[in-house]
């Protein structure tokens, strides 16, 4: 069952082809779309590709970093200026998957995948997308909420502000298989500190809802406080609020609810 492959020199042409054909899917690294074809997904009749160098560009020298949607996790790991994103990049797949899978594709990866997106959600990333009528920037939360409707748009890049210190951004993925495996849960925390108090905390969770979500109650427990044991306990106790995890082969919904607070506490206390 052959599909039509359309390859374009630039991203805007590819976006045009994508927006005008409901059965078209954009092929990035192949770890999602080729997998769907291997599984016999007949909803895909056209594959759209773009060989646009803008999609594989990394701008990481300044305080605000931008990563092209086509940048692979192997390239993120090779970029010293993106050290704060190395832990999430390293937690994905084995070497072959990291050589193929892209930052843009990860935004569409369903549970138990999409770990890099958990980090980007905690970092309040902005997603640049191109539709049939031009490009625009979407906050990552809004992007994820409407992810099913984003099929006709092409993600160009993601950008976020570099955390102030290595302490300010923390990431942990719980997997049954080490060092590689699908996520039981994934937790990322951005904890900017102003005058000894947390200002603008963002906690993001993977595998705790149909898409990556923020743990807003936990964020509220941290806001304006110093990161002491009582604050951490309050945040951990609030971690499940608003979550709706599912059962899958890696863990049950019950188990995920049981452990999310434990791992958030460990993450916030700096424990291994």
């Amino acid at each position, binding site marked *: *069952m*052959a*599909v*039509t*492959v359309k*390859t374009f020199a630039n991203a805007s042409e590819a976006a045009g082809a994508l927006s005008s054909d409901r059965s078209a899917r954009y*092929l990035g*690294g*192949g*770890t999602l779309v*080729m*997998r769907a*074809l*291997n*599984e016999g997904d007949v909803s895909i009749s056209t*594959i759209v*590709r773009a060989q646009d160098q803008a999609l594989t560009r990394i701008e990481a020298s300044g305080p605000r970093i931008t990563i092209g949607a086509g940048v692979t996790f*192997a390239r993120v790991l090779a970029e010293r200026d993106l050290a704060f994103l190395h832990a999430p990049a390293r937690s994905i*797949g*084995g*070497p*072959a*998957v990291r*050589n*193929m899978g892209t930052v843009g594709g990860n935004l569409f990866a369903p549970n138990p995948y999409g770990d890099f997106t958990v980090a980007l959600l905690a970092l309040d990333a902005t997603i640049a997308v191109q539709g049939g009528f031009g490009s625009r920037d979407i906050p990552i939360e809004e992007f994820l909420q409407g992810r099913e409707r984003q099929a006709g748009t092409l993600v160009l890049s993601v950008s976020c502000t570099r955390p102030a210190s290595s302490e300010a951004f923390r990431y942990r993925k719980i997997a049954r298989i080490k*060092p*590689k495996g699908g996520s039981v849960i994934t937790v990322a925390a951005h904890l900017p500190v102003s005058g000894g108090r947390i200002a603008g905390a963002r906690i993001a969770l993977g595998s705790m809802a149909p898409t990556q979500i923020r743990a807003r109650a936990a964020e509220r427990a941290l806001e304006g406080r110093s990161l002491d044991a009582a604050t951490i306990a309050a945040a951990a106790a609030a971690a499940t609020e608003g979550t709706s995890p599912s059962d899958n082969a890696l863990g049950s919904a019950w188990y995920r609810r049981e452990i999310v607070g434990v791992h958030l506490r460990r993450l916030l206390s700096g424990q291994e």
Partner: protein
Amino acid sequence: MTKIPLQFRHNGRDVAIFVDGGTNLLVALRELIGDMTPKFGCGQGGCGTCSVLIDGELHLSCLTLAETVAGRSVETLDGMKQGPNLHPLQRAFADNFAAQCGYCTPGMLMAAKALLDRNPSPSRTEVIEAISGNICRCTGYEPIINAILAAAGGRASA
């Protein structure tokens, strides 16, 4: 549906084939070129037995759209032996009992080659990381890890 012409280097030799749109590299290698060394395992990126090197980089051939390798160099296990002699990694796998059923072995060897090509003396941890995308259900991994370390320089018990 029209066929797409595709040329690339396969184990150092230029090949030209016609593929259907959407054909993956694994199917192209096995069914159109006749190189049966990369195996089909899961088709999902979970098992690693279809691993090949594309321009020296480890990739999963079952998740690679065949036409994306146009003009590039694809290495498979079939190209690993040097004339009548086994590659040092193949020799080490045999000596260390690193293959039982053998289904994962092509992918394991390509993952190991990708590691040793850029890091000739890896640590045990680096070896484990390098084969972390490859599943073996027979050996329990230890003989494979030891074989790769042995091939890297006789540090099998490191």
